[in-house]
């Protein structure tokens, strides 16, 4: 079965095709939502933001030049919206920090049980990474973005992308070590 490419959908959206917009939304909404949710850590805010992201796609489709993949372009918009929302709602950042602190001191029975499961501890450590490190790890591993694409989305040089990813992974090892898992690296 033939699938219409994202680029064709964008061209149709530029011409006001609502059906193409529905297809694009259905295709990308979950990934964009998860990317935003990992940044803002609030489901209601993430939902509001994705409708804003796709509204921007609707409005800007005619200006899309195809220099990057459509998904990369949308993640750039999503990141900008998420960071703007975080700047507008400092109390949410506070909630975020509070949540992190709770997680940091979460040496409760639940965590003790999780410690038995290395994979679960690893996921917990991934959640504890700073927003900057979380973002790059998600873009590389989950959103499957190349060095060049991450550089475009985050707005940093490619060399910085590589070093930031390296330090995110290093921090991950430190967090695992705190939980008693020594990976022997770095």
């Amino acid at each position: 079965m033939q699938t219409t490419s994202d680029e064709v959908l964008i061209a149709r959206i530029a011409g006001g095709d609502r059906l193409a917009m529905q297809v694009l939304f259905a295709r990308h909404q979950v990934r964009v939502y998860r990317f935003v949710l990992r940044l803002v850590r609030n489901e209601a805010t993430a939902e509001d933001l994705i409708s804003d992201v796709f509204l921007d796609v609707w409005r800007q489709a005619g200006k899309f030049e195809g220099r990057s993949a459509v998904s990369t372009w949308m993640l750039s918009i999503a990141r900008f919206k998420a960071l703007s929302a975080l700047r507008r709602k400092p109390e949410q950042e506070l909630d975020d920090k509070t949540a992190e602190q709770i997680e940091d001191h979460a040496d409760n029975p639940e965590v003790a049980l999780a410690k038995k499961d290395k994979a679960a501890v690893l996921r917990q450590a991934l959640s504890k990474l700073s927003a900057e490190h979380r973002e790059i790890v998600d873009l590389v591993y989950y959103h499957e973005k190349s060095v060049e694409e991450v550089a475009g989305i985050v707005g940093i040089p490619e060399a910085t992308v590589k070093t930031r990813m390296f330090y995110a992974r290093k921090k991950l090892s430190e967090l695992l070590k705190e939980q008693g898992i020594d990976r022997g690296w770095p």
Partner: protein
Amino acid sequence: MNTTNKEAHSDIEELLPWHAAGTLSRRDAQRVEAALARDPELARRYALVREELDETILLNETLGAPSGRAMEKLFAKIDAEPLRKPVLSLNFGVRVAGFFASLSPRTLAWSASAAALAILLQAGLIANIVLKEQSAGGYETASAPSTDPGVGAFTLIRFAPQASSDDITKFLEANKLQVAAGPMSGGLYKVRVAVTGLPKAELARIVKKLQEDKVVGFIATTE
């Protein structure tokens, strides 16, 4: 390990996450593969990267999905937007891609000839635009046939998927036809069959005749 080797090792190690995700260029992927094959410590570290990748995916997959509210909200906002005029500046590549997207999978087997056709017809369209621009600046005698592609008798044609560009060129030349616009939705082209308006019966006769040609998949009269 000397400094140069250490730098090379560090360079390769930085690429491991992208290698695991399959987003490296072929050249870089080959460099990483070669390094992994000769360096057991690097291979061990690569296994750590694979674990991180697996758990990051799992973590994201457990985040759930947005509710239907997000889509409702989006389309309510789109409905509130001013009506949009079709964008004329869509680049040629996207238009061709759109043309292919409108074709059935079977038709795509003929993509090579279809691509040639699209270019040919686009060239015809450009030629028409040029003619239109020239005629707007020049003059015409009252009796001379119009070169304005907006004047004349027209049909809408969708060419048969199996028709090659040669077949179509011959068909257009033999019948003195001119592509005035397209491709439009559904792979249709507006084709001028006469440079002046024709009586309905005459136009219907021409359409019937053209319909018999194997190059034509669909044909209808149009304004």
